[in-house]
């Protein structure tokens, strides 16, 4: 029995089955241009909904892995939330319909809906956790991103910004009514930098992340060390966040 299971036919050794998009983690030397063309064509034939799901999943993974908060994907979130709303309406419309066929369809829709809701919820909660952890630092970054012409999207959504500012004012009121109000005036600030230590806490930008390279990046120097690494398409690396941050934001490298 064991022997028969072994692949004996030569088909296994011939060319791999044709896929629309070659797997990204096996770089094919020399075939890069064709890959790129194929990838471009593939992207256009995939419907917007599927691409949004991919993008949302990617945002979610990245947000959960990256030490700092990433820009708010305005358009993507608008599309996703709009679709969620429409699906909920559809479900509400169709409930009460006892036709088994629609009933089954509804279950499929609802399952998908639950999954989408989970993704969005987890994504938002990951962001809120970061906002709560480093509020002043993120606020400064957000304000910088508003005036920065290079930043395509602001760092925070309007409601997140509102949450951050009200939470921060709540906290400072709480501190000052609990003890800070009785302090000497010079010591009442919460964003003091005197004495060489800034009171504003920052995320650890040196922490290690797993990344997969989507497009050739070339040589990457890791700050603070002598190390220079060559990142090629399809590679998976464990590197410091600050070393690859630029390319992650540009979309050349994705977090895994």
């Amino acid at each position, binding site marked *: 029995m064991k022997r028969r299971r072994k692949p004996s036919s030569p088909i296994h050794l011939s060319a791999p089955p044709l896929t629309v998009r070659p797997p990204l983690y096996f770089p094919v030397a020399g075939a890069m241009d064709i890959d790129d063309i194929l990838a471009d064509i593939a992207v256009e034939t995939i419907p917007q909904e599927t691409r949004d799901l991919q993008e949302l999943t990617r945002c979610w993974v990245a947000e959960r892995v990256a030490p700092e908060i990433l820009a708010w994907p305005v358009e993507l979130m608008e599309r996703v939330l709009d679709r969620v709303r429409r699906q909920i309406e559809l479900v509400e419309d169709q409930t009460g319909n006892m036709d088994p066929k629609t009933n089954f369809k509804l279950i499929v829709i609802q399952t998908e809906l639950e999954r989408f809701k989970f993704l969005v919820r987890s994504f*938002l909660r990951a962001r809120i956790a970061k906002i709560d952890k480093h509020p002043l630092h993120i606020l400064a970054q957000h304000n910088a991103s508003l005036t920065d012409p290079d930043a395509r999207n602001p760092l925070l959504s309007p409601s997140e910004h509102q949450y951050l500012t009200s939470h921060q004012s709540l*906290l400072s009121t709480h501190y000052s009514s609990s*003890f800070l109000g009785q302090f000497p005036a010079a*010591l009442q600030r919460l964003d003091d930098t005197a004495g060489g230590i800034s009171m504003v806490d920052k995320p650890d930008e040196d922490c290690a992340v797993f990344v997969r390279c989507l497009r050739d990046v070339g040589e990457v120097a890791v700050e603070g060390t002598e190390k220079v690494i060559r990142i090629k398409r399809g590679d998976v690396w464990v590197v410091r966040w600050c070393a690859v941050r630029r390319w992650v934001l540009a979309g050349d490298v994705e977090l895994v």
Partner: protein
Amino acid sequence: MYGEVGNKLVQHAKRTQSLAHLPPYQSEMVRAATREVRDLDKDVATILEPFAGSFNPSTEPATACALLVNHLCMRRNKRCLLAYHRTRTDKLEEMCWSGVDVLERQQQQSSKAGGDGGPAMGTDSNSSSLSPEEEEYVRQYSDLLAAYKGQWTDIDLTGSLEPPRDLFIDVRVLKDAGEIQTEYGAITLTKNSQFYVRQGDVERLIAQGYLQRLS
């Protein structure tokens, strides 16, 4: 000794992190640490008074050193106090997120301990583990959270953070929860009965401990 109270506060904060409930607010210690800061500040003022604004550290190294120590102690106390309060507010926020009604629980505790006193108004009674400021903070934070959640009604932000596997789950009723409305009609949840229901309909009840999920 300078900074001793601050140190104790930090130890309290550290302990709070691993506790399930919130230990009583150490108003005595907070007050002592604040007093220490004020005293130190007065000390600094008295030391600097004879110099009338023209103090040169290099000519008077001994005084400069005393000033530095005082100054660092004040900063350290501030850090300790901030850390203590932040740890507690973090804990309170966590409770708000998980849907625990902190204030109600406090009132229950205080009515159990103090009888007809109602919600404890001062930290001098041991009945409430929150300071009045913290109670106010919890109230306002819940409002803030509700406002933020209100913008995401479709998503239900405080919902489960476990990836959903099935639309329907088996649950067992632990406490009578009355009748709930689902899209397939009303279900009466009586103790010890078992149901196969939509997860979204009963998530709140599971979190509140009325239902138990069966795997």
